[in-house]
């Protein structure tokens, strides 16, 4: 079909305009707007969970203070630093793409990928700790302070749901960055066309920002209450 051929052509020579756009400016603006609208849906997606979090934190502030003592703040803070740093390398990757510097682009993307994997590994260690401590919600759940058993279980449920969904976004992001590296290695990008780098960059920053909210809300906020 003629249609498919055109989109294949657009892949082979990325600067080629897709058939349904008038010019490259329109194409870029559409991609950018599309990405922002997508991020809006992501905000609403996480928003439902932040809403549930708010409700339970207000219902059970004392239990919340109690659970936050079982969060590993050192690992959480390390991960926050790792992610902020990965946002920097991602921004530098976009800049390299802008300047058409292929080698810099590939190395910054690789840095970002490594930092993402570091984050996920640390997250794994944390989850493992929770597993050892029987803090996974469900039939095997145990809690040191029995008066908070049910409430703490709900809060750990939210902890796993929120950080788990975030980690899932990180895994998807890592996959996307690998795709970008492969595309960059095959000279798909130029200073005239690097839209995917920019779009995935936006996605990466968004996922980082979600963590910036998760860290204080889940790890820090209850520790001052005793």
């Amino acid at each position, binding site marked *: *079909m*003629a*249609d*498919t051929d055109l*989109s294949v052509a657009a892949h082979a020579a990325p600067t080629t305009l897709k*058939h*349904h*756009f008038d010019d490259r400016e*329109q194409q870029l*603006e*559409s991609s950018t*707007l*599309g990405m922002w*609208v*997508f991020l*809006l*849906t*992501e905000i*609403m*997606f*996480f*928003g*439902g*969970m932040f*809403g*549930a979090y708010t*409700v*339970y934190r207000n*219902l*059970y502030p004392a239990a919340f203070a109690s659970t936050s003592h079982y969060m590993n703040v050192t690992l959480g803070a390390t991960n926050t630093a790792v992610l902020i740093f990965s946002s920097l390398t991602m921004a530098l990757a976009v800049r390299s793409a802008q300047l058409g510097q292929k080698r810099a682009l590939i190395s910054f993307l690789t840095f970002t990928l490594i930092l993402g994997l570091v984050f996920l590994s640390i997250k794994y260690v944390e989850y493992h700790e929770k597993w050892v401590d029987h803090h996974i*919600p*469900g*039939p095997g*759940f145990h809690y040191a302070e029995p008066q908070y058993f*049910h*409430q703490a*279980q*709900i809060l*750990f*449920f*939210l902890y796993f*749901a929120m950080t788990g*969904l975030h980690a899932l976004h990180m895994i998807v992001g890592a996959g996307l960055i690998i795709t970008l590296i492969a595309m960059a290695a095959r000279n798909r990008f130029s200073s005239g066309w690097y839209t995917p780098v920019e779009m995935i960059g936006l996605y990466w920053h968004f996922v980082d920002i979600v963590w910036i909210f998760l860290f204080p809300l889940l790890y820090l906020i209850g520790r001052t209450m005793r």
Partner: protein
Amino acid sequence: MSTTLPLPETTERPNYLNVDYSWKSWLFTTDHKRIALLYLFSITAFFLVGAVFAGLMRLNLLFPDGLFEHDTYNKFFTMHGVIMVFFFLVPSIPATLGNFLLPIMIGARDLAFPRINLLSWYIYIAGGVFAVLAIVKGGVDTGWTFYAPFSTTYSNTHVILAAIGVFISGFSSILTGLNFIVTVHKMRAPGMTWSRLPLFVWAHYATSLIQVLGTPVVAITIVLLMLERILHAGIFDPNLGGDPVLFQHLFWFYSHPAVYIMILPGMGVVSEIIACYSRKGIFGYGFVAFSSVAIAVLGFMVWGHHLFVAGQSMYASMVFSFISFLVAVPSAIKVFNWTATMYKGSITFDTPMLYALGFIGLFTIGGLTGLFLATMAIDVHLTDTYFVIAHFHYVMVGGMVLAFLGGIHFWFPKMTGRLYPEMWARLAAAIIFVGFNLTFFPQFILGYLGMPRRYATYAQEFQVLHVLSTAGASILGVGYLLPLIYLTWAWRKGERSPQNPWQAKGLEWEQSPTPPPTFNFDVPPVVTERPYNYSEEVEVGGY
């Protein structure tokens, strides 16, 4: 007609249908028109499945003691609701007529993201597979609302399968909305300013806002529901310190705005039809356009009217009640403006117009009875009765399904290049109107008298009204089968349509061939006049 044209080699000019007949050209198409047809066939199939469940329910309700096991009846109404809401009503007009027409109406060659458009159809089908799997494996009995803790703790049916189906299909809705928003912003033809957009496009733009902002919330709600059903950590279980009302808040945060996903596109269709068959510009174009956006915005702030008797704070209920009244204002604006459009117009009662008039009448009844339910004191009496059922079927079926059928008839020549048999179509429209009212009007009375929804049995005194309702449903069923038959026939054998059979305004009729070629226009379209310029007036300060 075509025999008189000097085309020696082919009788038909190339269009999006005849360029390629292979199955690959359909399953891998990125043409928004072909994807629209893929959606059209899929949602029609789901509509038939949902309708069968409705038929089984009505059969059961012929008898005060019921006909089926009570558990089976619970599955009937659940599957009817799940299929009809998530797999028919939500995608109905946007994914079919919207997909087909929106790019043509604004003068674009395709949607902004054609491959994402195709992806959305595959996602829809994947979600549908899970829903069908849930049915085949024995069904679900929670009601389409999946209320916790019944759905998370007590139900022993295939809740997770159905929930996965709804979760997945939500993303097809999100992607459609995203595509429409970007397309409307970035792909308009020269001269197609915002104030010249067809009202169909305005309605779809507003719908897309809801799809993009609301659907993710129900998606995450369903994730929490599934996790809770697996882990039993208690997040929605009051026995374990959880809050079941939180589930209702999250669910209705999407599902109330979702009723506007299910009605706004219908309002868009009706605006086009009313203008065409009254031969007049839409009265108060700006008001009708902005009322769509107002409905979308206000619609996000009224979900609490589903929780008046759920233990929600009285003050919250008062606010939700007040805003629910407010959202009736933009809906009423539309009805008044359609009526004013028809005033002194040259009205013809062709089939699409019959559906549009039916829409106005039935939607008005559905909307006004919604105000009864938005009134806190009356809602205490009417909550969970057949009054609610009748109310939302007047909006969803009397409104959206009639608009869908009206739109399908109106643009049938555009999509197929053929004309449908007018007399059969008018007959079907009349049968549907009669059948619909006979089905659902008795339910208002049933509900007012206290018959609760979702009950397999009832007191003897309700039988007459239930029998009337079932009789109406049978008539309605015949009414639905008729278009299925004659439209299928017309697609193959109908008379060939000229480019603009209704002498309608709008790019899709005036500047795009019928049926359109793959890229919609032979000559890049330019817009030089205001929308619905049926009186051929020159724009003030003209172009």
